């Protein structure tokens, strides 16, 4: 009986906690539950939520990508720079910016993936290097200055809506849905779990382990590139400091969502809850006028508590 409760909590504890947080913040301040504020939370959360979907794949293979925040900035800056080459009044500048950002993200991800599989450098080290490299490259690209002055079509990607849903939120929903389907129902998804669960057994079952590991870094790279474009469109400027600290939020979303850093366990479903939880918490603490210094302490405590509970529940089985 108690075992059942623990199993249930292990499965739905995070969701329960999310609901309790929403109830609590609403009781403190009615403004929290307003449509406007909820839209705000979702839009804010969508940018790193999109990356977190990709990060789930990386963490499933027992890897990690610390470079996503820097890559977001680099891809956003690269997109804006390339778009700028065509002049300001080209109406299709967003296409150029979007495709370059995604291409830059994919290439950077591919390089990192190859460094992990071919040079056999631990992912933590590769992406720790990548984190600095892409940030530096962003500064070099435009001498540290922001690029702004995008046209309306460009900005629509960050500020527009479709059926009252902000574009970044719609994209996040689309990508999360796709990620869920890939993980649950496709051979590729099964292969990612297998590689993370036991790479040697995966190889003996005929899987190309190196290709699969490389591919997850490409996925997270593409999504970081997309997020970089969306962020620049939303803020109306590509900034060299964009996305700083995002790697921690993204990894926290995946881990709070129940994924194991040793690979093979977790999923996009949990990651979405994790991303929403961090979004709700950050926003709710702001509304309650808790200082941003304390916000960091609270978020950190919750990450540790989530993993501690998971470990505890696992030991009790």
């Amino acid at each position: 009986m108690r075992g059942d409760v623990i199993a249930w909590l292990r499965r739905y504890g995070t969701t329960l906690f999310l609901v309790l947080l929403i109830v609590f913040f609403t009781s403190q301040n009615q403004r929290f539950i307003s449509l406007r504020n909820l839209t705000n939370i979702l839009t804010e959360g969508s940018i790193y939520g999109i990356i977190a979907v990709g990060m789930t794949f990386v963490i499933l293979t027992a890897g990690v990508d610390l470079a996503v925040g820097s890559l977001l900035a680099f891809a956003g800056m690269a997109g804006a720079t390339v778009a700028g080459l065509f002049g300001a009044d080209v109406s299709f500048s967003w296409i150029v910016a979007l495709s370059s950002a995604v291409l830059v993200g994919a290439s950077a991800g591919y390089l990192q993936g190859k460094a992990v599989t071919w040079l056999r450098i631990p992912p933590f080290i590769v992406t720790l290097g990548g984190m600095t490299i892409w940030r530096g490259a962003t500064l070099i690209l435009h001498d540290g200055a922001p690029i702004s002055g995008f046209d309306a079509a460009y900005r629509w990607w960050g500020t527009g809506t479709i059926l009252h849903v902000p574009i970044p939120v719609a994209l996040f929903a689309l990508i999360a849905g796709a990620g869920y389907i890939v993980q649950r129902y496709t051979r590729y998804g099964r292969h990612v779990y297998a590689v993370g669960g036991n790479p040697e057994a995966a190889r003996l079952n005929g899987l190309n382990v190196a290709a699969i590991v490389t591919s997850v870094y490409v996925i997270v790279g593409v999504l970081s590139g997309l997020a970089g474009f969306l962020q620049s469109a939303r803020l109306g400027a590509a900034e060299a400091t964009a996305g700083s600290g995002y790697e921690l939020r993204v990894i926290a979303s995946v881990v709070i969502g129940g994924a194991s850093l040793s690979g093979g366990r977790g999923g996009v479903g949990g990651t979405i809850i994790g991303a929403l939880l961090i979004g709700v918490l950050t926003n709710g603490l702001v509304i309650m006028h808790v200082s941003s210094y304390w916000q960091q302490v609270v978020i950190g405590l919750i990450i540790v508590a989530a993993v501690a509970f998971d470990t505890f529940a696992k030991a009790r089985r």
Partner: protein
Amino acid sequence: MPAPVLEVRNVHKQFPGVKALEGVQFIVQRGEVHALLGENGAGKSTLLKILSGAQAADLGECLLDGLILDPADTPLARQRLGLVTIYQEFNLLPFMSVAENLYLGREPTRHGVIDWKRMRTDARATLLSLGLQVDPELEVRWLSVAQQQMIEIARAMTQSAKLIIMDEPTAALSSREVDVLHDVIRKLRARGVSLIYVTHRLQEVKQICDSFTVLRDGRYVTRGAVSDADVKDFVRLMVGRDVEFVKRPHGAPGNTVMSVSGIGTDRDPAGRHATPLHDVSLDVRAGEVLGFAGLVGAGRTELARILFGADRCDRGVLYLNGRELAPLQHPAQAIEAGLALVPEDRKQQGCFLEQSVSRNLTLPSLKRLALWRVFVNERRESEMVEHYRLALGIKMADAHVAIGTLSGGNQQKVLLARCMALNPKVLIVDEPTRGIDVGAKAEVHLLLCEMAARSTAVIVISSELPELMALCDRIVVFREGRVTGVVSAADANEAALMDLMAIAHPSHG
């Protein structure tokens, strides 16, 4: 009769849904080697865990030297009382020296700092007293599995152990290493140390043990002297009925499916433990069961992995269905070509322990179960799993439980089912019955025979000669990376095979 060193009275232990032990009694006399026998699931592990302090009994009591043990004892507390357990997975620190490992947590000190000189002298003396030639300053990671096990035993000696529990100590040892272990055990016995010995190799019980206790389904069955029983008696007591290796009827073998010639590998510069192969040639026919016999390190597993494309091969040619190929480069090619492998190490190389039985079983077959080779059809997947659950008698709550929760025998059946689902032309099974109980062993044998009857070529690697002689049509014998003989089952006898396997002298206990 003197007071026993260990007495267990009426112990009960219940887990959610299972009664693991029901009123078990168990006695070990001073200075005897006592075999604890039973199939997987009979309650041996639970009893050992209760003795070592890893778990507490629900009811009943354990007495060590006539004193009742506190059920709340930790394993460390039990060790201090002289009850030491040596597990299959060793608890040694690989980057520390032998001496440091021997005295871990009990380092001799002088003026508050470690007395390195005394530690080394003491370590050397302990090792010598067990007849072990190991440098106490060597880091443990450089030692072989057998040597590491000896270090564990030596550590028990430095703790002045009264009773040592050994769980499957010979599972990973070669015959020569087993002999060394048995010598050490006799030395311990001569000093009045008692041992509880758990093994699936019943022949060994005859060789080394004085008395035995049999458990079945969590209950005490009997206790007796080893000299009054033979291996068949053990099996009958464990299973509750007679079990024999079914001698497979030999059919007419079909065409040659696969052959290799001149397979050779160089010594690995990275210094991994693989045995280099020299000019290995052999062939295997459809519907045939071909055995690979040899000591540990003879090159059998190495060849299997090369055949399967899992390891690099430096020389040689492979013929598949008469077509000449370079040796395969990747297991994916092997699976594509109709090969399947059940690897040697179930947990490290076979299972995805945290993932479901279903996912473990279907992984290499997903291509067939997927729409447009992309989307897995979960209905057809569960049909496949259900088919093999029934066909192989896999015991599990349902197909979504983690494979790690199944017994060894059932895990092995899942891995066999995984290979059978590929419909292979050649099936290679490496130590298919290691560490699984007698009943499951017979079932695995039956499955392999059925595969052969459906004209699959089956290659069996086994360290148990009776198993090979019962199953195989022909047996290829390996020694130090070379093939030393191919014997047809009709002519095979254990002594002749041993001769071909043994390195220096053929005599063998």
